[in-house]
């Protein structure tokens, strides 16, 4: 990766400019991110160790780190559920998206651009509408359950909605384009001649895939799994619409603590824990997968 980076820097001619121009270009955007991304995160960190000052909605700083313990112990189940659901949904999305991206990159011919647009097109119908549509398609009044019950694949008591199955498939569905696009981008860069060369050297289809295609597409796999896993782990909409109370994820708890219980400090502590857990996982994963430059 480092070698590729070195070449690209040279051939794209980055200017070694000692003037202030690059900093002038950066300043507005980076100041904006400092004010409205970094500073709020600090404010959230401060909030997480505050305690109620008696009045509703008023908190004072008391450095009560036990907020974290309270918050974590109160929602261990939802915490682990978030990570388990997000992991399964990410693997599911990878399994669905990889052949899809492969087909677009190598088999679509002049339809390539149209198919790429179609991958993102569902985004434009509100994701809430689509999630609710799934609820109705899989629900008690919907066609799927009637057919499945009619041919006795599932018993009349079994439901498809309000299950962990519905939440996980909902998550996989929602973030599928985030998985497909990076996979496509890395597959598209593969020179088809390398695959032909592998075939010429008597590798069969599976060996070619395992030894050539898959390793070359790893940057896409890493980027796609991250872009799916991160929002999935923090999501609470799928659990709220497609799940039952026993499928609640960490996002549901944070949402409820902010808006229903109005307990900002523990909500902040939970948000912080979620962010820290995701960042640690992401760092370990990127190290293991061996791709440094993602952005």
């Amino acid at each position: 990766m480092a070698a590729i980076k070195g070449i690209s820097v040279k051939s794209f001619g980055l200017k070694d400019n000692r003037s202030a121009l690059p900093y002038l270009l950066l300043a507005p955007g980076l100041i904006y991110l400092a004010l409205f991304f970094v500073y709020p995160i600090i404010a959230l960190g401060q909030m997480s160790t505050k305690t109620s000052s008696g009045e509703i909605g008023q908190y004072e700083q008391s450095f009560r780190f036990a907020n974290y313990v309270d918050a974590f112990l109160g929602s261990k189940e939802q915490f682990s559920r978030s990570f388990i659901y997000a992991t399964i949904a990410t693997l599911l999305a990878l399994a669905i998206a990889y052949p899809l991206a492969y087909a677009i990159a190598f088999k679509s011919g002049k339809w390539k651009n149209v198919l790429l647009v179609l991958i993102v097109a569902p985004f434009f119908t509100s994701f809430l509408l689509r999630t609710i549509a799934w609820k109705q398609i899989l629900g008690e009044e919907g066609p799927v359950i009637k057919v499945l019950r009619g041919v006795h694949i599932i018993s009349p008591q079994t439901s498809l909605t309000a299950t962990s199955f519905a939440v996980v498939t909902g998550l996989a569905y929602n973030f599928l384009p985030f998985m497909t696009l990076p996979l496509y981008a890395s597959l598209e860069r593969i020179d088809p001649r390398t695959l032909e060369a592998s075939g010429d050297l008597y590798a069969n289809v599976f060996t070619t895939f395992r030894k050539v295609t898959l390793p070359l597409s790893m940057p896409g796999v890493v980027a796609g799994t991250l872009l799916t896993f991160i929002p999935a782990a923090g999501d609470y909409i799928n659990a709220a619409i497609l799940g039952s109370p026993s499928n609640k994820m960490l996002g549901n708890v944070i949402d409820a603590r902010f808006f229903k219980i109005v307990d900002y400090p523990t909500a902040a502590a939970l948000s912080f824990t979620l962010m820290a857990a995701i960042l640690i996982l992401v760092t370990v994963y990127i190290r293991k997968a061996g791709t440094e430059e993602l952005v």
Partner: protein
Amino acid sequence: MKKLTRWLSKNLIKVYAFLGFTYLFIPVFYTFAFSFNDSGRSNLVWKGFTLKNWKNPCGAPDICMALGNSLKIGLISTILATILGTLIAFALGRYKFAGRSTTNLLIFLPMATPEIVLGASLLTMFLNLGITPGLVPTIIAHVMFCISFVVVTVKARIASLDPRLEQAAMDLYANEWQTFRRVTLPLVAPGIAAAALLSFSLSFDDFIITNFNSGTVTTFPKFVYTAAARGIPAQANVIGSSMFFIALIVVIAGQILSNKRKAKI
């Protein structure tokens, strides 16, 4: 039978892709189909075909006000995020400077932070400062999470340019500004357009961050979420389907335009 298996093994990946796209579009078709449903208050069961929802998309109370807010927030956020993000993308794509990796990290982090954390942290800051959630805090939040996506999209476009085109302009005695104006910017423009479209769709569809920071202001996704409890009016399906077709037309028109331009060159 043998023929069929041979055809299948040859076209397996295409069949699979077809199934994948079908899966992706089932809820879109469903939403479209139920926009013609002659439903009462809740749009759950098919009750017969009607055009009345399409003739009167604002028929459900508050739905067009919510849509208007979403469009307003989306447009303003898109313009601001596209400007800020494009400037950063040019700095990263064109110059070597100290603090490059810190900048990259600062761009990456908002994308690696779950929406609920972004929403919660901004709300905490606004409350600390005594700012009431509403339209302006929502726009501030949307610009924030769109910037990173703009930077990544535009930077990729800048990186894919052939540097010889700019060198050629310089060889022909264009100064740095002329080169930028006449060569670089037109070449990067499709990337900027794609970034703006992406920003708008992210902003328009956002629920979680909006829900934290919008207070009493209703956006279209907020309207849908609140309505879901008592049954979504079919007009929501009309608006969702219209957005889908409008976006598709914009993208296809852009594609035709760039094809024409390529043909000219």
